[in-house]
């Protein structure tokens, strides 16, 4: 008797669960459809009758027998736009990316890239805990806080929606934690010998900088000389007054330089206008622009105002898959204007203020609210900047103390020097 009563209850529970799944998928569908209707830069998104699209796809989501099937229908719907940077990221990807990551801004001072499926140290913050313990560029990071990083990388790379910037951030997150904490990590050194280290977690490099509602971020700017070639690198287009002033000072001190290298690898962007402002120190010709951004009700020209003192020598810009947004606008625009030669690997193709939101069913939704066309006529969103010279980092080169991308830029600048 008890069993007989439990069965209907169990069935009822299943029914409720099923309805909850369907409702979450329907809510997610409505969220995606409404967001595109309200925020797409075209009143008729993709030139489509968006209401008709709704009426066509909603019944299919209602009939979907599983979460995966519902997601596929929503994916198909946004695929009708035939535009980049509209994507559904399965909830499981977030699980892989976020799982067991202890929050905190404490860092070991390691920067890394995923090279050949492995997390490889590419640079170290000066004086950082990792640098003090002798970690070197080129070392491979095997484990962090008990997690096998290769497994994390494999899982994330299995999904094409995860791009290099996301992947790198996810791996870096496993090398972070609360400031003052400690992190156990296992490396392969230059001889492939395992090195186990306990690393302190310290405040990130740079100066804490706030910009409105954005969370406070640490911003650093460095400049140096290699012979008569100047090199600048900064991690974000933020802390505007300080970074712009530092950039200006670098350029003005470079009047007689043979060339200037601007390293935007790992720079995810920031304030878009800074790309225009910095370009003004490098472009002498009036009435130039880096590109054009198309919003729903206006068009914004990314203009360049030539400064009174402009550096007119060769400019090399270094990029990689973690160069995004303002970095891409800057690099792509100066490349299109013929003012800079770009070295490195393809950029993140995330030039726009595209947003990520979590949907009611747990999936992620990426959408763009504008279209940006670089001065060369090519949209950066979804395509990114293709370097003039594709140069990839390799572990052997890093272990040998070389940065092949910097080396390529130096060689090019030296070749430009007039006899």
């Amino acid at each position, binding site marked *: 008797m008890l069993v007989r009563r439990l069965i209907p209850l169990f069935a009822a529970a299943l029914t409720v669960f099923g309805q909850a799944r369907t409702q979450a998928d329907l809510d997610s569908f409505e969220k995606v459809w409404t967001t595109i209707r309200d925020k797409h830069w075209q009143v008729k998104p993709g030139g489509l009758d968006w209401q008709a699209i709704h009426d066509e796809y909603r019944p299919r989501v209602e009939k979907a027998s599983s979460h995966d099937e519902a997601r596929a229908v929503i994916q198909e719907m946004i695929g009708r736009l035939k535009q980049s940077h509209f994507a559904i990221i399965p909830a499981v990807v977030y699980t892989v990316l976020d799982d067991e990551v202890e929050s905190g801004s404490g860092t070991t001072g390691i920067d890394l890239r995923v090279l050949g499926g492995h997390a490889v140290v590419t640079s170290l913050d000066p004086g950082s805990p990792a640098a003090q313990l002798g970690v070197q560029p080129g070392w491979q990071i095997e484990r962090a806080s008990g997690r096998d990083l290769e497994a994390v990388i494999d899982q994330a790379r299995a999904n094409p929606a995860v791009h290099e910037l996301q992947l790198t951030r996810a791996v870096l997150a496993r090398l972070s934690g609360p400031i003052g904490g400690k992190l156990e990590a296992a490396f392969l050194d230059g001889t492939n010998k395992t090195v186990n280290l306990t690393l302190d977690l310290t405040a990130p490099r740079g100066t804490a900088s706030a910009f409105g509602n954005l969370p406070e971020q640490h911003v650093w700017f460095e400049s140096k000389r290699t012979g008569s070639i100047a090199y600048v690198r900064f991690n974000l287009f933020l802390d505007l007054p300080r970074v712009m002033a530092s950039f200006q000072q670098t350029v003005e001190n470079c009047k007689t330089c043979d060339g200037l290298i601007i390293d935007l690898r790992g720079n995810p962007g920031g304030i878009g206008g800074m790309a225009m*402002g910095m370009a*003004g120190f490098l472009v002498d010709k009036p009435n130039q622009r880096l590109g054009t951004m198309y919003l729903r009700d206006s068009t914004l020209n990314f*203009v360049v105002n030539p400064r009174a003192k402009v550096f007119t020598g060769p400019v090399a810009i270094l990029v990689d898959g973690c160069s995004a947004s303002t970095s891409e606008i800057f690099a792509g625009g100066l490349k299109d204007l013929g003012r800079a030669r770009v070295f490195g690997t393809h950029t993140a193709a995330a030039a726009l203020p595209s947003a990520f939101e979590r949907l009611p069913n747990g999936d992620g939704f990426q959408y763009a609210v504008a279209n940006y066309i670089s001065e060369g006529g090519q949209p950066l969103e979804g395509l990114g900047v293709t370097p003039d010279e594709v140069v990839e980092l390799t572990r052997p080169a890093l272990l040998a103390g070389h940065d092949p991308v910097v080396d390529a830029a130096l060689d090019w600048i030296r070749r430009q020097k007039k006899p």
Partner: protein
Amino acid sequence: MNRRILILLLACAGAGVTSVYGADPLPSAESILDRYVQVTGGKQAYEKRKSEIAHGTVDFPALGIKGTMTRYAAQPDKYYYTVDIAAIGKMEAGVNDSIAWENSAILGPRVKSGVERAEAIREGNMNATVNWRKLYPKVENAGIETIDGQECFKVVMTPAEGQPITGYYQKKSGLQVKLTTVATSQLGDIPLEIIASDYKDFGGILEPAKVIQKAGTQEFTMTLERVEVNPAIPAATFALPAEVRALVDKTVDKGEAK
């Protein structure tokens, strides 16, 4: 851009007529603009003002950014304003000797030209309120619209050079409560909507203490806190900053800059 807000508002006024409208027919645009001058202080009050320094704040609520604004103006056509926002730095603009310029930490110095220069010079005219007939050769009453439950006359003002400006004047109070135009800027033509409210007496002239400006996807609020009336403003205040002067000197096309 911040200067534009107040200047555009002030520029939509006129002098003289004190009529109060009847029911029909629609009053002329001229009488509406003249009434605005009258209800905000009168021609004499405007003409007594030879210089001013206005102090206020700017607030971009969506971005979480706030700053301060100071505007200097002197008859007949000198102005200088500066906006300081910690996260962005200083933004300044001005008109002096018919050179319209702007300078910011983000975009650098620039000398305006063409329509943009014409608009800046028009906005820099301190007597714009009472000189609207010179600034806007064509004005017309385009009808009545209700804004926030109040009937407003819709007046379209067309300058000799630049985009028309549409001002909305409350039928009951004569005050301007809204303004729309398309601003010419180097970034492109940007639709502007300006909402004016909280009119207060600043040294004998009513000015909107609160102005909300919607420009494309951006919206900010400017609050006017106090106005110094007829202060002595050193000439150096209106002088071109060194970076702008260097550009002017560098520019071959000085005829355009002038």
